């Protein structure tokens, strides 16, 4: 049961992280500013790497594992682009896209779709996080009982293990079955009553 809880917590944390990533990239964020301030005649950022900056608290969500964070950001961008990779250095990095607007004139439309997609995915993720948190809260009510059960079962198992280490050295069920098949074969049926309990 503790493993299940850890897994749920882990899933929730990963979703929360992803949700935070979307929020970071949603309208009003640094990326949004970059899109809206881009001029049609300016060179597209795609292919050259999109610079991103993360605050310390956000980076802390993923701990010291930069590779994991970069991988998640890459996956995030892949939701609206066929392929994206992210390289992080400290709390800054770049995101590169395989597919990009083919001309500067198509860039605003592409960016608008990009932002809308971010909104929708973010909303979906927030709902999933809420659902998971609700499940966790339901389980938390039983957590003291579960811990008590596990502790009691653990203590009993320890006692049994100790007893088995002393008593069970010569206990070999497979060998016993072989002996049974040699020694316990009858020549005639037992009395029928003998099989009644």
């Amino acid at each position, binding site marked *: 049961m503790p493993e299940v809880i850890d897994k749920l917590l882990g899933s929730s944390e990963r979703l929360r992280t992803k949700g935070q990533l979307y929020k970071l990239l949603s309208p009003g964020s640094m990326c949004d500013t970059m899109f809206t301030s881009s001029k049609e005649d300016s060179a597209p950022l795609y292919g050259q790497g999109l610079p991103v900056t993360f605050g310390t608290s956000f980076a802390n969500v993923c701990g010291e594992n930069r590779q994991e964070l970069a991988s998640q950001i890459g996956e995030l961008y892949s939701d609206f682009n066929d392929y994206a990779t992210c390289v992080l250095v400290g709390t800054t990095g770049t995101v590169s896209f395989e597919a990009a607007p083919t001309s500067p004139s198509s860039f605003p439309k592409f960016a608008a779709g990009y932002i809308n997609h971010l909104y929708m995915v973010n909303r979906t993720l927030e709902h999933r996080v809420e659902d998971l948190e609700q499940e966790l809260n339901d389980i938390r009510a039983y957590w003291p009982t579960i811990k008590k059960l596990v502790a*009691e079962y653990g203590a009993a198992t320890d006692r049994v293990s100790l007893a088995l280490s002393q008593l069970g050295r010569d206990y070999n069920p*497979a*060998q*016993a079955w072989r*002996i049974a098949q040699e020694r*316990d074969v009858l*020549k005639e049926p037992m009395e029928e009553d003998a*099989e009644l309990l």
Partner: protein
Amino acid sequence: MAATGILFADYSKHPKPKRLYLDSSFAILLLHYELNKTSPAALRPKHQQAFNFHQALTADGVDLVGSVLTYHEVLHFYTFKYTGGMYDLAKAYLVSVGSSLNSPQENFKLFNKRAPAACAAAWQTIAHRVGATEYFFDQHGIKLRSPLPSPKLTNITQDVINYASILKDAFVALEAADSVHLSMSHYLDSDAVATSDLGFLTADPFKIYYCT
């Protein structure tokens, strides 16, 4: 109303159960078959029927479960009542010393009390039956489960006993252990029970697979 009874031989004519609870009488038939399959003279038709039924259940992937009670009764049968078991050994000892005979249980207690060393030596000749019993359940895919966790933390144990008591109270043909088997079969979420004990057939609303 009585239970829904289905002969082992008619198994394929009915919807298959997902989980079947095995009472000890069925497990004993199967154990007897497995021990004596090389000695046909020692087998009765019901042993073969139990084996065939088990083969069909296994082929269909039916979840086979028993309980602590199933294990206890099969172990007792094999180590005490089966030919050459402790009841026979106790009787042989008492005859050899010219002692009068009583019930098998009393003979065993007397043997152990009067000649503990001889009793221990006799036990060693059949002690393999304990391990063999456990191996038998394991090899036949019979999972022994029992809804009996800590009484401090749950009232399931009490619920099982309460249900068994009500069943025993209601059905005269059920023996005490049978009522506990039936109670646990429901608490283990089994669709039906396999047995050779015809007393089970009186218990509504259970579905019973049986042989005669």
